[in-house]
Every structure is written in C-alpha cells, then in structure tokens.
C-alpha cells in the first residue's frame, strides 16, 4: 500500500498547532514512515499539490481565504481542522465582538480601507470538515491518535463528555471549591484537564460539548455566585463565533 499523502495549511493563527505536530515527532518519529508529507510550508520547501489528507490550522478571516479553502477541499479526500482557530474561530473571533469598522480603524487608522478582513470564522463555516482536533494548542497525543484512526479508516475518537470527567480522574480539587471559575462542566474533554491541573480554570478552548447540561451548569454558577451572562462572556475567549448570538439574546432579555 502506498503511503497516504498529507499536506498542512495555515490561515489566521499563531502556527502553534503545526509546531505541536513537529513536536509530536520527538516521540513518534515513525509517523513519517506511515504518511508522506507533500506540503508543510513552515517546515519544508517542497510544495506538492497531490494530497489526500489536508490538515488546516487557523481561521478564515477574509474573503480571499475562501478561494484557498475551496481549492483544498476540492483536492483533499479528508479535511481535518487543526486546533481551536480552525475548529471554532478561536481568539481570532474575539474581534467579532466589536464592530468591524471600529476594529480596522483602531488598528490601521486612516488606512483602514486598505485591509481586507471580515468576521473571523471556523473552517466549517466555509467548507465541509471531516474531522477536528480541538484545543489551543492541540494536544500532541490526541493528534497522534487521530492520525492513527484516519490511517485505519476509522472515525477519529474525539470525546463528547465534559472536562470534569478527566479532571476527576486526575483527582484535582474542584476549582469552584477554591473560589475560581472554570468552564470544565460544559467543555469538551480530551486535554487531560490540563488547565485545572495547573491551577487555572478551563477557558473552553476545545468548544462546548454537544449537549451541555445547562441546568447543572446554572446550579454550579449560582453556588459560585455567578450568572449565565458572566459564564457566556468567559466563553468568548475561544467561542465567540458560537456564543455571540446567545449573548445578543441574553442582552435582549
């Protein structure tokens, strides 16, 4: 069997997820025996256009990005969103909380109209995405698990239960008991609860779980003296694209 051809692409992002891919090679150098990387601008000069799997890091933030995305979708049998920017919009979408004109004026002053930009959005707002590797940045081990699953023709195993499950397994003291705020109850697990384990509340970089128990979350918030509005506002760090409408609704109430 010939090795599947793989390419990496980046849009608006910090490229930290691609670096995490490079880091995965420290412990999994044999990955390179299983796939052939034909394009990876950050790490190699060669640019092959014949690929079956496309990993895309970054958000779509300007109309001209769409043409590049359509081209990738046309070529690739499998498109994987790599990390929070591609999966959710991530921090790039924070600008969507401000009027676009204001953001451009603020940064570019009287040159604002020279800059092409629109509301930042996840990749699946533009093209169909077959698999996601969540997180900001992605988790190295999860990346390897997803690649293995794809090589075996299986659906990649991304958890759909909340972070609290993993946090409990780590035997962490719940951060709410320590007077801190955490989005773990409604955020997708898979990172090993890395932030709570290091004393910091979950910031929701892996996105909402499919069916969050909103009532339970409300109870937790009430106990901690917080409102839904405040919780939703916290969710905007990575999930503005997903919660913006909800915020408008809450405001209207």
């Amino acid at each position, binding site marked *: 069997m010939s090795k599947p051809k793989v390419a990496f692409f*980046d*849009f*608006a*992002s*910090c*490229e*930290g*997820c*691609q*670096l*995490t891919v*490079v*880091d995965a*090679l*420290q*412990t999994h*150098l044999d990955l*390179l025996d299983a796939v052939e*990387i034909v394009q*990876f*601008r*950050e*790490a*190699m*000069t*060669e*640019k092959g256009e014949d690929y079956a799997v496309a990993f895309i890091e*970054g958000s779509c*933030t*300007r109309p001209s*990005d769409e043409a590049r995305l359509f081209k990738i979708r046309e070529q690739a049998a499998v498109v994987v969103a790599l990390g929070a920017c591609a999966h959710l919009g*991530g*921090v*790039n979408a*924070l*600008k969507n*909380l*401000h009027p676009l004109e*204001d*953001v*451009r004026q*603020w*940064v*570019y002053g009287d*040159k604002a109209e*020279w*800059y*092409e*930009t629109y509301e930042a959005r996840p990749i699946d707002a533009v093209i169909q995405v077959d698999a996601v590797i969540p997180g*900001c*940045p992605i988790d190295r081990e999860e990346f390897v698990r997803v690649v293995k699953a794809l090589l075996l023709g299986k659906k990649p195993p991304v958890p759909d239960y909340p972070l609290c499950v993993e946090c409990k397994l780590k035997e962490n003291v719940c951060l709410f008991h320590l007077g801190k705020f955490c989005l773990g109850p409604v955020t997708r697990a898979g990172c090993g609860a*890395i*932030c709570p*384990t*290091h*004393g*910091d509340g979950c*910031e929701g970089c892996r996105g909402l779980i499919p069916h969050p128990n909103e009532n339970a979350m409300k109870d937790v918030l009430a106990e901690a003296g917080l409102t839904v509005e405040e919780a939703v506002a916290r969710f905007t*760090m990575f999930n503005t694209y997903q919660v913006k409408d909800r915020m408008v609704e809450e405001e209207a109430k």
Partner: protein
Amino acid sequence: MTTVKIDVHHLTRVEGHGDIVIDVQNGEIKTCRFEVVEAPRFFEAFVRGRSYLELSHITSRICGICSVGHATASLRATENALGVEPSEQTVLLRKLNFHGELIDSHVLHTYYLVAPDFLGVGSVIPLIETHREVVERALRIKKLSGDLCAMIGGRHTHPVALTVGGFTHFPTEQELRDMQQRLIDARADMDVTVALFATLPWPEFERETEYVSLHKDDEYAFIDGTIVTSDGFSYPISEYRKVTNEWCVPFSTAKWTKHNRDAYMVGAMARMNNNFDQLHPRAKEAAAKLGLKPLMTNSYLNSAAQVVEMVHCIEDGIEICDRLLTRGIQPEKPVEPATLSGEGAGSCDVPRGILFHNYVYEDGICVRANCIIPTNQNWANVNADMQALLPQIIDKPQDEIRLAMEMLVRAYDPCISCSTHLLNVTFV
C-alpha cells in the same frame, strides 16, 4: 545586461507568510524586498474590554513559538500598570521557563529551518535518512526544552500556570532536580552542536547597522532591564516608543521601525553585540569556537549567535535550578494588584529580539493595548540587507541569488504571524 526576476511566493521554513520579490531589468534594480502577506489578526483591538487576568493568556496566542515570551512581557506590562512586584521565586521560575522557550525556538530555527540550506535539502525530513544522528540530537534538545517549559508552565505552547503576580502551579523539588540533571547531560549535545555549526560555510556579507536589545549589568538580559543600542543610546522600558518610532513605507502599508539610522536589528546577534560580557563563560567559549565576537555585522551569523545563546541558557538554567533548590520551592499565592487602573509597559528579549507590550487598564479592564514585535523591528533591516547584498551577487545564477536571499531572510528567524498581529502588506 543582467535581468533577474525572482518571486518567492510564501517563503518556506519561516513562521508565517511572506514573499521575496526581486526585479532587475538591464542591470537596474527595480524591486528588491520582502513582502508580508499574512492575514491581519487585530489583537490590539480585541483585547479591549478583557480582564487584566486574561491578557497574558490571550496575547500568548499571538505566537506559537514564543508564547512564553509574549505571556511574560504581557505579565510585566500588567504588573507595572497595576503595581505588582513579583517575588524572587516568581522571577527565578519565569527566567527558567524563558530559557526553556529560547532553547526550543533556537533549536527549531538552527537545526530544522537553517541547517537544510547548508545540506542542500528542502527540509529536515530527508536528513532523517542521511543524518539521523543530527536529527535525533535536535529532537533530544527540543524535547528537553519543551519538557522544561511544561514543568513550569504546564505545557510549552501557550503556558497555563503563568499569571499576574506569580504562578498557579509549581514544579516539585524532585522535578527540578531531574530537570537540572537533564540540563547537565545536555552539555554533551551542545558541545557537538557548537562543533557542527562551526563547520558550516556561513555566507560572507557585512553590513553594519544599529543593534538594539535589553541590557542588565549583572546578567545577560532577557526579562526587564533597560533598552540599549550599539550607537550608545539607553532608555527605560517605559520610553520604548523613542526607540521604535514606527513609520510607513511607500510600497507597503507595513509599519517599520527606525531609531538612530534608517533601520536597526534585534535578535540573538544584537543581544550578543550589546551584552557579550554578561554571557556565561561556557557560552563565551562556544562563541570563540564559532568565531563570534562583537561587533558582528554579518546578519547570516544571527543563527550562529543563537547556538551560543542555547549554551548560555543551558548553563544559566543549571544555575537557576541550583538557586531554586537551595532556597527551596514553595507554592505561593500570586501577588494581588495594588490598583486596578493604570498604564504599564513590559519588555522581554524573546528569541527573535526585543518585544514590548503596553496596556492601559480602567477598573481591571484593558482599554488600550500596544504590542511591538521583534520581527516588525527587523523588517527595515532585512530590506536594507537585501538591497546591500543584491548588487554583490547580481551576476550569479538566478537560483543562487534566490537561495542567498532566502537564507538571508531566514537568518532573521522571522516570525510573521507575530508581526501581523497588527500589520499587513497590501499590494498597491
């Protein structure tokens, strides 16, 4: 007469998107420049309205390679704005974390991105077959530096445990001891690294410029200190704008910076030019083996200077572990802000050069932010170098010119995602 047309669309083995454009018609240079085509990201605009506790976590996302540097500069800006004085333990842990990132970034650049040029290959991947030992050594050093960052910050990219006034997690004494031993063991890998890079045929090219970095009298400065330049200027960090003087160039809308001349350079070579005396003795030995001493004026040697800094950070890292182990490491509560309103600037000399963050807070909410990134400060100098180099090599074959220019831009280790947190080039 010579006619050269080079358009390197999306230069590879750099972080971010940029193009080299050269147009020579009948011996006359029409165009010779590096253009940035990365998508703008608007960080300064969208951090407005966020809590002071979120700023370092958001701005670390400017860059995946130097996220610890951005987080640290961000924390220092916030702490200066809100009257927070971090403890001795916090200062030591931040330095150690910073060293981890510097080693990580430099090993990535020197081994993965620069070395392939000298070995005539397009990436590090073919080297796995031909130079397995070299690749495995690079992976070992990279793993060590990543593990060092993770021990302190929770993970390397986008550190978790760094917060205003301190940390939310602490390494154990045993973890520190083990890490110190690994740093000591890494000396052997660094010796071989220095020897390897000493054999590389660095391209010859001299163009003196102004070199800008942080400076401290008692240590090789990476976090805090004063801003100094090789032209003899010195400023407190709060006056960073006197150095950066952002300006616009007619052919692009990217802001560049200049100080005493039309351009200045930041990064490993600039730091070494200004702070050679403060290097660790073993790093000075490495510099001697690589033939480096101030004043270095060949920008290609920036990559060699990075090798020297890796040696420095490993040695200084061993000493910081000693100090932490001697004084004992204790979980500490972060220092609370004295006020929630105010303005502050913070600076770190990150892998690619001096970085500034500057915020204004009202009631704990950010209302204004400015970040000036090393790569932006280098753009004017990159272009000045390209224009000085081109006439010297103009009669060479086009492929050789292209490679020389690519290697020159790559030597600066440009971080284009960083530089477009704010700026972008539109073709006019």
